């Protein structure tokens, strides 16, 4: 047993000295602020000592092993919680603080849980979801009243998401239980640090903002393709660049190769393995079995692996000695992310870190140049915190009602202290209460519905089944239904979206976990596979592709507008010139003050390619609006897809408009009516509703083994629930929230309005093109998340599709493998 004397700063200095560390000034700053009872946000790049800054601050106030629960450590990464707890325990032991650090996540066993119910350790490492669950137990309430601090790791990762909102709600509860509670957040660099700090501590408290060691100098380089003329205009894998990447790998002792998607990671792992058969290399992505991931992490730490191909699964949390070199395959997408990844190289704080960028398609050259300019200018993305999410609030109200200890008014007072719900209107609050107590608004109460009841002035959940089911569903993470991938004889490889497996037939090969496997059969939500050779497809995981941040999109616009006028053009832009001149020759280059619209006819129908260069979110709104307004003029089914540079509209026929006619369609008149209508017509709101329905307890993910018949009886898809609500309770505020989320988060209403206004005074240049241009090609080839708006009847639409099927069947012999994806299909 350690002596129970409180550690001092001198003890810390001794310990640091023994390990050849030095105490940074920002760490002392934290310790002093913490000792004074203050809250705050510490921001610094990964590996700069943030964790110890916060944790030692807490240990300096420790009084030994007899203390009650003092510190809650919240991590967004359940998989890393065990490592974190071990690291914290080690520091506590080294300093003789006598604290015990335990883990509480979804993986914690029942014995440990029962022990914690009786007696919490001095510090508990947990996730937002598990914390929320802990707050649902009445008998745990006394254990929280002695808390000194809540420390939130990777706060930037939570901010801007519903998990962040859930964290805010948990914090408001803890502050009510322990009024002098400190809140400390650890964050990577963000564009809105002050706001991040305010959200963290709540509206009526102040936060210290502590800057960690100044960011390392980062060098961003690009591997230029040898011949831009033959460089793909679209595509995601980038394998033509393999020889140069191999050369770069050979030149370094250890490398991390980051990709943007799991599919890219699988493919590159395979290709590098084939090119360097003798090398120990590793693969790391979120769908792999946890054991395989841990092996790879250990391999990086010990230096046993010469190269690791990874996705964003390695962006967070995992601490390891920096590698020699970081390679980024594919567009940077965000400045903060690129810098974070670059920070994995370079050995000492303050040293230069380098990232070698590998474009997979032509326009990514401009993105890398833009990332360099943005990083140089300190233009880091902001994460905008969410407000007034009624789904998360409804879940929280039920969670706290499970403790039978609060009145509705108390609860409202607590949440009013959060940034997320400060100033929530009376009507909205009343609706949330009605929703959990009566199902719908007071006027349209749902018969027989009951969940939360009010008795003796307190909120209760009386039904044990409802209570159990709610506890199982606490959280805001919505994932696609995943299916385990396993060899026939046992070994689990990881998991993959059920929708991917559904497209495979037994015998079909695919890449997974760095191997070529073939599907044998699917049984009980497990896809059994065997080793395979020959041609394979790569799982096209959902959600792997992310849009360019608006900060970066802005700089790309700037660069393209500057074109070759700048004397000091970057190597990337210089390399891009031949492509830009093709664009100029066949069509035109978008430039400020000019809206470029390309019109093309093909077997698919009439295409319009429009390039406002305003970022993906604005393009989503513009294309939905334009499609909707076109469909209002005449019966029409119009599909549209967007990227960061523009959007494509496609219909059987599109009207022959001149510039003024098009400008009229882009007017801001009736925008507040037409935009929501276009979002509803394109079912964007319905898609958003999926997450809302899950969080608000309207749909349940399957719980393996715990479902039984009753859960099956109340399972319905969120789409079906949405339709029923739209029909029988049109004033439901959760469907309204779906619309609002689509408008605000997906479409960026304000920027959309500004863009439309700007277009009214811009020159509109309509160019008829007879083939896809360099700018149009990626839009055509990457039709992801295609939306559509229709003013035709269902039977007309079916008739047209049947016509098209017929035509496609007739021209069948002409179809080649490259046009395979474009072909019409009726898929059962």
């Amino acid at each position, binding site marked *: 047993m350690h002596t129970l004397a409180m550690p001092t700063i001198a003890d810390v200095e001794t310990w640091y000295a023994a390990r050849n560390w030095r105490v940074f000034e920002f760490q002392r700053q934290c310790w002093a602020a913490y000792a004074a009872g203050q809250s705050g946000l510490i921001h610094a790049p990964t590996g700069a000592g943030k964790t110890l800054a916060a944790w030692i601050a807490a240990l300096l106030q420790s009084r030994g092993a007899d203390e009650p629960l003092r510190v809650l450590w919240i991590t967004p990464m359940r998989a890393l919680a065990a490592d974190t707890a071990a690291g914290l325990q080690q520091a506590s032991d080294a300093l003789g603080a006598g604290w015990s650090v335990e883990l509480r996540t979804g993986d914690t066993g029942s014995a440990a849980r029962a022990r914690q119910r009786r007696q919490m350790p001095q510090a508990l490492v947990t996730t937002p979801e598990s914390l929320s669950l802990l707050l649902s137990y009445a008998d745990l309430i006394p254990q929280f009243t002695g808390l000194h601090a809540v420390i939130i790791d990777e706060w930037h990762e939570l901010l801007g998401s519903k998990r962040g909102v859930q964290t805010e709600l948990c914090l408001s509860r803890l502050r009510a239980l322990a009024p002098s509670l400190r809140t400390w957040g650890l964050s990577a660099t963000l564009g809105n640090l002050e706001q991040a700090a305010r959200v963290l501590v709540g509206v009526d408290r102040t936060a210290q903002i502590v800057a960690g060691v100044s960011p390392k100098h980062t060098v961003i380089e690009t591997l230029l393709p040898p011949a831009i003329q033959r460089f793909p205009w679209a595509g995601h894998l980038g394998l033509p660049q393999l020889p140069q990447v191999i050369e770069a790998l050979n030149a370094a002792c250890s490398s991390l190769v980051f990709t943007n998607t799991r599919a890219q990671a699988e493919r590159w792992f395979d290709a590098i393995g084939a090119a360097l058969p003798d090398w120990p290399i590793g693969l790391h992505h979120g769908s792999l079995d946890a054991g395989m991931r841990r092996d790879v992490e250990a391999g990086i730490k010990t230096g046993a692996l010469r190269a690791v191909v990874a996705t964003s699964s390695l962006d967070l949390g995992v601490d390891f000695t920096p590698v020699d070199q970081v390679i980024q395959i594919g567009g940077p997408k965000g400045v903060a992310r690129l810098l974070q990844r670059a920070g994995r190289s370079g050995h000492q704080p303050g040293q230069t870190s380098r990232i070698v960028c590998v474009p997979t398609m032509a326009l990514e050259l401009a993105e890398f140049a833009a990332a360099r300019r943005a990083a140089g200018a300190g233009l880091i993305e902001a994460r905008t915190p969410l407000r007034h999410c009624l789904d998360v609030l409804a879940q929280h109200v039920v969670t706290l009602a499970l403790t039978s200890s609060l009145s509705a008014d108390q609860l409202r007072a607590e949440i009013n202290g959060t940034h997320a719900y400060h100033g929530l209107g009376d009507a909205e609050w009343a609706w949330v209460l009605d929703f959990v107590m009566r199902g719908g608004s007071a006027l349209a109460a749902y018969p027989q519905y009951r969940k939360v009841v009010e008795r003796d002035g307190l909120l209760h959940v009386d039904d044990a089944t409802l209570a159990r089911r*709610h506890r199982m569903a606490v959280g805001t993470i919505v994932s696609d239904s995943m299916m385990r991938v396993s060899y026939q004889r046992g070994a689990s490889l990881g998991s993959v979206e059920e929708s991917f497996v559904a497209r495979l037939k037994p015998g079909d090969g695919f890449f997974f976990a760095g191997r070529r496997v073939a599907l044998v059969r699917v049984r009980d939500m497990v896809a059994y596979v065997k080793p395979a050779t020959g041609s394979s497809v790569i799982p096209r995981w959902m959600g792997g592709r992310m849009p360019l941040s608006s900060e970066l999109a802005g700089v790309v616009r700037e660069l393209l507008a500057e074109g070759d006028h700048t004397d000091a053009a970057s190597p990337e832009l210089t390399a891009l010139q031949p492509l830009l001149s093709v664009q100029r020759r066949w069509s035109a280059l978008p430039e400020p003050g000019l809206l470029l619209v390309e019109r093309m006819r093909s077997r698919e129908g009439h295409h319009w390619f429009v390039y406002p260069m305003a970022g993906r979110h604005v393009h989503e709104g513009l294309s939905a609006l334009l499609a909707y307004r076109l469909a209002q003029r005449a019966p029409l089914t119009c599909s549209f897809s967007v990227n960061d540079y523009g959007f494509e509209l496609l219909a059987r026929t599109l009207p022959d408009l001149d510039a003024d006619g098009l400008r009229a369609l882009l007017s801001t008149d009736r925008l507040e009516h037409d935009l929501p209508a276009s979002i509803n017509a394109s079912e964007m709101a319905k898609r958003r509703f999926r997450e809302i329905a899950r969080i608000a307890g309207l749909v349940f993910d399957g719980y393996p083994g715990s479902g039984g018949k009753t859960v099956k009886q109340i399972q319905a898809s969120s789409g079906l629930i949405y339709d029923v609500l739209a029909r029988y309770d049109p004033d439901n505020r959760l469907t309204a929230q779906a619309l609002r989320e689509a408008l605000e988060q997906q479409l960026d209403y304000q920027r959309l309005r500004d863009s439309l206004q700007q277009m009214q005074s811009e020159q509109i240049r309509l160019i008829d093109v007879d083939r896809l241009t360099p700018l149009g090609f990626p839009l055509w080839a990457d039709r992801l998340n295609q939306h559509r708006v229709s003013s035709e009847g269902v039977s007309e639409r*079916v008739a047209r599709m*049947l016509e098209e099927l017929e035509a496609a*069947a007739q021209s069948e012999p002409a179809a080649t493998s490259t046009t395979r994806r474009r072909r019409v299909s*009726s898929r059962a």
Partner: protein
Amino acid sequence: MLDPTQTLDVALAGESVRLDARRALYWPRRRTLIVADVHLGKDSVFRRAGVAVPSGSTGDDLARLAALLLDHGAERLLVLGDLFHARLVADEPWFADMDRFRRQHASLRIDVVRGNHDRIDGVPAAWQLNWREEPADEPPFVLMHDATAPRSITTGYALGGHLHPVLNLTSTRDRLRLPVFWLRQDHAVLPSFGGFTGGHPIEAVDGDRVIGIAGDRLMALPNRRR
């Protein structure tokens, strides 16, 4: 009045039947309206379990059923299973709708092939439902809940539901998900009737006929993956 654009006459096992876009099948020779997977009371099962789903779909389903019986001049209603979503709890508010439906169709014979969701105890006797265990033989048809299940009567053409069949129709410019009648070599699967029911994509093969419900029209759809 029956709207001729809403129906399609087809022959199944040599027997002439009429498909209706309101998700029903009419068998003229037996003056029988056939539906499957009505799932009455599903919304209230959800509400009682604490899932806030509004009411209304059960009443609408009964109204649609009444219109179909009238338009086709049916004398018998045959339900191919899952008339109810779960075991009935006494005095549900929607019982009043069902009582009214029964009073308005006092002479109607209602046969129900018991489906996996149906629980017979607790069903009010006043509704006069004739429960039939599958397979029920009514040549040329064999009445089932799941027509694809193995059955003791091996001859005859099976009619069933259970699958809630839908077809995803996709073209370059458009995509739709349609409930379908899935007419196969030795059995047919009806679309689910209930307004608060989902669908499951089917895997049609050569020789199948797939009749899609496109709004208020019926349209033959291609039967194979391309």
